[in-house]
């Protein structure tokens, strides 16, 4: 009895939330500072570079639309990796990571959708079309929302994490569809011009602010993600201690 309670199993050893919290406390200020710096540079570049001869000033929408679109996919990818961690290694931090990434992913997807719409009105003459890329991004948004709701619906966090993990992995098929939809169907949407095998086909004039903004958005994502993970760990810690307190109280009473 006493032996088991002392011996730390491999599982809980790996997943030491306390150690994670210490790490976060150390790197969080640096990450926040880096994010802020990137945004300052990125925004400066975004508004000082030339407009496109074809798209005019609206090309500036690209500097947020494209990074947000990338991050909406990256957020889901991070959730998928976490889901693997949950199912294969049963790592509690993976549960936390997947849960914390969902609202962030949803936020960036929303940005991509809205800025895309705002770009579409002047460019295509309509806010919204049911085209393959737009539809699949919309589906991604719905899936984020669904996963958030699913997580809330199950009151047992570890079970919630395992169930969501399965769905996250199944939903991952949507990511390649988003990425390659423009190649598979000829749609209104621009095809890939930055992330291509044969190098970017875009003027460096636009590429520079785009890349800086992409880095800034990514840094923001990770900063918020580890903050949210820390919150989630605290939340569970509070829940565990409350439960313990209730039990001890009822035992005495």
């Amino acid at each position, binding site marked *: 009895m006493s032996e088991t309670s002392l011996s730390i199993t491999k599982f809980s050893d790996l997943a030491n939330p306390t150690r994670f919290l210490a790490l976060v406390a150390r790197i969080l200020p640096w990450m926040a500072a880096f994010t802020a710096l990137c945004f300052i540079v990125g925004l400066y570049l975004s508004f000082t570079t030339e407009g496109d001869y074809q798209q005019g000033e609206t090309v500036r929408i690209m500097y947020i639309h494209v990074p947000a679109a990338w991050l909406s996919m990256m957020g889901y990818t991070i959730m998928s990796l976490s889901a693997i961690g949950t199912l294969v290694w049963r790592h509690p931090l993976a549960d936390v990571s997947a849960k914390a990434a969902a609202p962030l992913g949803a936020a960036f997807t929303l940005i991509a959708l809205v800025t895309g719409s705002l770009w579409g009105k002047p460019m295509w003459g309509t806010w919204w079309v049911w085209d393959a890329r737009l539809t699949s991004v919309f589906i991604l948004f719905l899936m984020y929302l669904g996963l958030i709701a699913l997580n809330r619906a199950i009151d047992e966090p570890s079970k919630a994490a395992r169930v969501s993990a399965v769905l996250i992995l199944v939903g991952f098929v949507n990511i390649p569809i988003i990425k390659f939809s423009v190649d598979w169907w000829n749609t209104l949407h621009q095809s890939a011009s930055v992330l291509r095998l044969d190098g970017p086909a875009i003027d460096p004039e636009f590429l520079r602010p785009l890349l800086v903004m992409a880095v800034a958005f990514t840094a923001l994502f990770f900063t918020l993600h580890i903050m949210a993970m820390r919150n989630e760990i605290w939340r569970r810690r509070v829940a565990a201690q409350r439960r*313990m307190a209730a039990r001890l109280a009822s035992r005495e009473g």
Partner: protein
Amino acid sequence: MTHAFYVYGSYVFAALVTVAATLWTWADGRARRKELAALEASGIRRRSARAKDGE
């Protein structure tokens, strides 16, 4: 600027969402920290913390 509405609209919207997300995350963290402090104050301590005290 041509299409200023769309350009600024995008930037304002993106700013709103990112700032909201940041504030929400931060506020959530503060609330959790307060709860933990309250629990600590009411005498419920973490196992490891207790162990350190040599309980």
